[in-house]
Structure formats: structure tokens, C-alpha cells
């Protein structure tokens, strides 16, 4: 029984795995983001250059993926911090629901924003 308990306690939780996997993925995406947006351009891009940059389907896809992964990773981290407050089970559920809604809204806003920026090229 003790062995079983030890085994259960040493196993990383689903949230921890999600945080770890999204973190590693984020490092890869961030490196590509910094390379394409700042190193290749040698500095900060102006509005017109960003619009032309996002016109590339690869860059556009990368930015969308970036927004989704970074939002997931950030809000999962905020959830872990809030859970440090020794919350009751009911409050934990509420926190999870609120952060999930916030995450979906943030990712959706990022997606819409990327489309609006891309549409500047046509406008």
C-alpha cells in the first residue's frame, strides 16, 4: 500500500506534463519567432514590414501556434500559482473554469488579431 502511494505521488500530474510539453514546444517556437521577427530583420519591424511578414503562410501559422501554446502554458502556470493558496476543491474548479475561458478568449483574440493584421496587406 505504501509502495503504491509512493508510486502515485512520484508520478507527474497531467497538468505538470502539459506545462512541461508546452514549455519545450514554446522554446522551439520562440526561437523561430525571434529568428524570423528580429534576427532576420535585424531589429524591430515597423507596421508595414510586420504586415508583409505575416503574409507568409509559414509565419502566419507559426504566430497562431505561438499564441495558442504561450496562452496555454501561461495560464496553466497562473493556475498552479493560485493553487498554492491551499484552495478548497470547489474553488479550484472555479479557478480552472475561469482560466479556461480566459485562455480560449485570449487565443481567439490572438487569432483574430493575426487575421486583421494580415488583411492590412489586402486593404
Amino acid at each position, binding site marked *: 500500500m505504501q509502495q503504491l502511494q509512493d508510486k502515485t505521488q512520484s508520478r*507527474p500530474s497531467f497538468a*505538470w506534463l502539459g506545462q*512541461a510539453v508546452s*514549455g*519545450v514546444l*514554446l*522554446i522551439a517556437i*520562440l526561437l523561430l519567432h525571434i529568428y524570423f521577427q*528580429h534576427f532576420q530583420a*535585424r*531589429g*524591430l519591424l*515597423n*507596421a*508595414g514590414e*510586420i*504586415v508583409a511578414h505575416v503574409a507568409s503562410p509559414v509565419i502566419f501559422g507559426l504566430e497562431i501556434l505561438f499564441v495558442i501554446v*504561450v*496562452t496555454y502554458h*501561461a*495560464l496553466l*502556470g*497562473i493556475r498552479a*500559482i493560485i493553487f*498554492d*493558496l*491551499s*484552495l*478548497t476543491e*470547489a*474553488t479550484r474548479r*472555479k479557478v480552472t473554469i475561469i482560466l479556461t475561458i480566459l485562455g480560449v478568449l*485570449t487565443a481567439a*483574440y*490572438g487569432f483574430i*488579431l493575426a487575421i*486583421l*493584421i494580415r488583411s*492590412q496587406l489586402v486593404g
Partner: protein
Amino acid sequence: MNKPIGVRAGGWRFLARHWVFPYRRTGSTLAFVLNRWSGVLLAIYLYVHLGILTMIAVDPMAYDRFLGLARSPLGLAFDVVLILLILYHGLNGLRIIYATLAGHIEQHRAQFWAVVVISLLVTAYSAVLIFSFE
């Protein structure tokens, strides 16, 4: 006794003791506190970044005017701090994953200081590049 908002007694005290007053603590507590603070600051930056990018969709001219501030020494210094936060948070995250999955927890102190040194060195190199680009 449960408080109305559902925080158990001692929750806030835990946060203050472990987060705000990490002095006289071990290296692992310092690593934990720095990881959490850098994470919170980066999460705030995510929303600031989305707000700034909104300018491109709403008023591209306003974004180009904002670039004047971003390209000032203060704006570039902010970028350097941002890089330090990203590097520390990312490398420390990789260290935690390695320590957890490989089980090499006994070397955590050396690994933590390696993360700090690498973060500072790469940030210094990035600062040189950033200030030479602009």
C-alpha cells in the same frame, strides 16, 4: 475554518513566506521564486504584447510612432530584461524537467547556478546585438 472565497487558512501566509520573503532560504527556493516571478511577469507581458500588436490592426501609424519609444535606450533595455526573463524561465524549466524525469535531483544546486550563468551570458550577448541593430 474555510474563508468565504475558498482559501484555506495559511494560504496567503504560504505565498508571502515563499514568494515575497525568500531570504535565508536554500538555492532551490530561490530557483522556485525566480521561476514563479519570471513566469508571472512573462504572462503579464503576453497581454501587453497583444495590446501593442492591436495597434497594427487599428492604427498602423500609431504603432510606427510607438516604435520610436521601443527603439529608445529605455525600450531596448526593456527588451534585454525581457530576454533575461525568457532565458531564465526557459532554461530553469528545462532543468526542472530533466531533474524530474532523469531523477538527478542531487545536482540541482550546480544546475541552478549553471542556468543563472548561461542566462546572464546569453543576455549580455543579446544586449550587444540589440543595441548594435538599432
